[in-house]
């Protein structure tokens, strides 16, 4: 096994897909000469030249809109919007164009593009460069939303994202870029839509995504020290949502904690809770707990941001709550 960082794994996926398919190209702000704000695309310009990877004006709407148009004409664009907070200014191209093309063309064409964005807090980037946006986009039929938590998943999922004929939002957590992990040798794909049980257990199910997977695993290790067994499910994608893996786990554990970095209220955890309440109500031994950010913007000052972001202790507390409530 080789070790790569999350950043390198994403870069490797892009390089491999660009080598495999001449239709794949990269566009975005500072992606070519500068190698990307987070250096994910470093080295690609040297290998592929300025027709395969190029810098664009500061125009998120045009970046994504152009990716949509190019994808309709047979290209496979990978667009980078450096901060997921900028979804707001690319939203129309995503929601009203990319997501609806296949449907409104009656199946004739689709918009096979990937939109890569760095999301999440913890870097002291304040309110406009730190948000976790998946629930903004999760209510849009036609979109696919991927949130990898490890280097190997990031690589395999991105390769699937580039190849699928549908538009994919690929959310990369800024705090994960330097995280190292083992990468399988050779060619591999991780199918989108399949959750991964990152740690098996039978006392409580903890469902998490992105950066929160690592925190859920940390919480699970602490809980294990207390003799409590937590199963950690990494969703990997929230659209499609792997309901089976969640329901199978809850049927085994009877207890569910849902963790995401976005605010709890209106967050995607509510959807997961509703699915479980609807399809596995009889298996639940305790009420479902959700862990997420409070109902505030992401603050700037480190002591404030530290309070804002969900932590291992929050997950442990939620797990203890559902376990305590369920003890007979």
């Amino acid at each position, binding site marked *: 096994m080789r070790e790569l960082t999350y950043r390198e794994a994403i870069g490797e996926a892009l390089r491999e897909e660009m080598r495999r398919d001449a239709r794949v190209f990269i566009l975005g702000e500072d992606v070519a000469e500068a190698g990307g704000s987070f250096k994910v695309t470093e080295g690609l310009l040297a290998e592929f030249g300025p027709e395969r990877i190029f810098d664009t*004006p500061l125009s998120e*709407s045009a970046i994504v809109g152009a990716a949509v*148009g190019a*994808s*309709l004409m047979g290209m496979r664009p990978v667009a980078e919007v450096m901060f997921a907070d900028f979804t707001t200014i690319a939203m*129309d191209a995503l929601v009203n164009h990319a997501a609806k093309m296949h449907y409104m063309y009656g199946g004739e064409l689709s918009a096979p593009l990937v939109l890569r964005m760095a999301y999440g807090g913890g870097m002291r980037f304040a309110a406009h460069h730190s948000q976790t946006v998946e629930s903004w986009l999760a209510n849009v039929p036609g979109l696919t939303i991927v949130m990898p938590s490890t280097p190997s998943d990031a690589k395999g999922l991105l390769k699937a994202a580039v190849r699928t*004929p549908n538009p994919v939002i690929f959310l990369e957590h800024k705090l994960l870029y330097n995280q190292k992990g083992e990468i399988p040798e050779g060619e591999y794909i991780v*199918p989108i839509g399949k959750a991964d049980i990152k740690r098996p257990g039978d006392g409580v199910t903890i469902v998490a995504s992105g950066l929160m997977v690592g925190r859920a695993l940390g919480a699970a290790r602490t809980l294990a020290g207390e003799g409590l067994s937590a199963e950690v499910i990494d969703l990997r994608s929230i659209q499609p949502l792997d309901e089976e893996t969640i329901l199978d786990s809850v049927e085994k554990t009877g207890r569910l904690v849902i963790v995401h970095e976005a605010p709890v209220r209106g967050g995607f955890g509510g959807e997961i809770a509703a699915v479980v309440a609807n399809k596995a109500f009889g298996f639940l031994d305790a009420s479902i707990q959700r862990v997420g950010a409070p109902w505030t913007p992401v603050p700037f000052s480190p002591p404030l941001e530290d309070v804002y972001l969900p932590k291992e202790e929050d997950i442990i507390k939620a797990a203890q709550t559902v376990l305590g409530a369920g003890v007979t």
Partner: protein
Amino acid sequence: MSHADQLTARDLIQMYRWMVLTRAFEDRICGLWGKGGVVELPHGCQGQEAIAVGACYGLRQHDQVMPSLRTRGAFLVKGVSPRVQMAGVYGKATGPARGKATAHHMGDAERGVLLGSGVVGASITVAVGAALAFKLQRKDNIVVDFFGDGAAQRGDFHEGLNFAGVFRLPIVFVLENNGFSEYTPLSKHFAGSDFACRAQGYGFPGIRLDGNDVFAVYEAVQAAAARARTGGGPTLLECVTYRYRNHCEVLPPEALRDTAEIEQWRAKDPIPRMRAQLTQRGVITDALLRKLHAEVEAEIDDAVKFAEESPSPAPEELYKDVYAPEPPELVVGRRA
């Protein structure tokens, strides 16, 4: 010799016919609106026919057009049949996307019609992207992107035109300045003198022209297209025209309008104007005109009959085509 000078008598009659067909289509759906059957609220383009017809005539099959809300003629000239357009107006299974898209905002991959947007102006960036693909693919196809003066006030106008200028993309922006943004007159939504001058800020030519002169439009688009095909980059064409109907059929044409203004523009109507030119040149006779107009009416009658008799989409159509088919090694777990 100009591009327009090279048009044959057959071309001229065909262009005239497209304009008459466009007008007849719009008049028919406006007349039918409110009487049952027509479910797509008409946003008529009467008065603006010369722009879509002049711009699309002579384009190649694989050139893409991005229609606006006022370019019925673009669909027709590109080969979308009046039957399909009318079935779209009626929301029938024989219409665009089997009832899932409107006639105004439908796409046609085979005929080179890009799928537009109900968010006017937002589709400019998508049209730019199609032109980007042609450049990357080293194809000499072009994109003709239509939008109105209202849409030109959106941020996507700026982002899209700047992007096209930076990458010298093969695209012709056709701005239909019809004097109104929905119900708001130009004087209330625009402080500038003209739109064409904006192109200078994006590094490519902008030309203001008479949008009621089908030959002027044809000439300008053909010249811009020839430049675009050979790497010369984009052009912005501001075609000045006038919309007779209101924004949509919710209000009668004369509401919020100066009727004298409508009458002034009727004197410059593009259809009688072209007819007079063709008659003067001896291209067309009264007998031929009568035949042509009768044929057009019959074609619209046929389209309406087709739409009326077409089945409505089956309920299960709702769930089709949300995602393109994918192999399970790439994506699993899609559900309705």
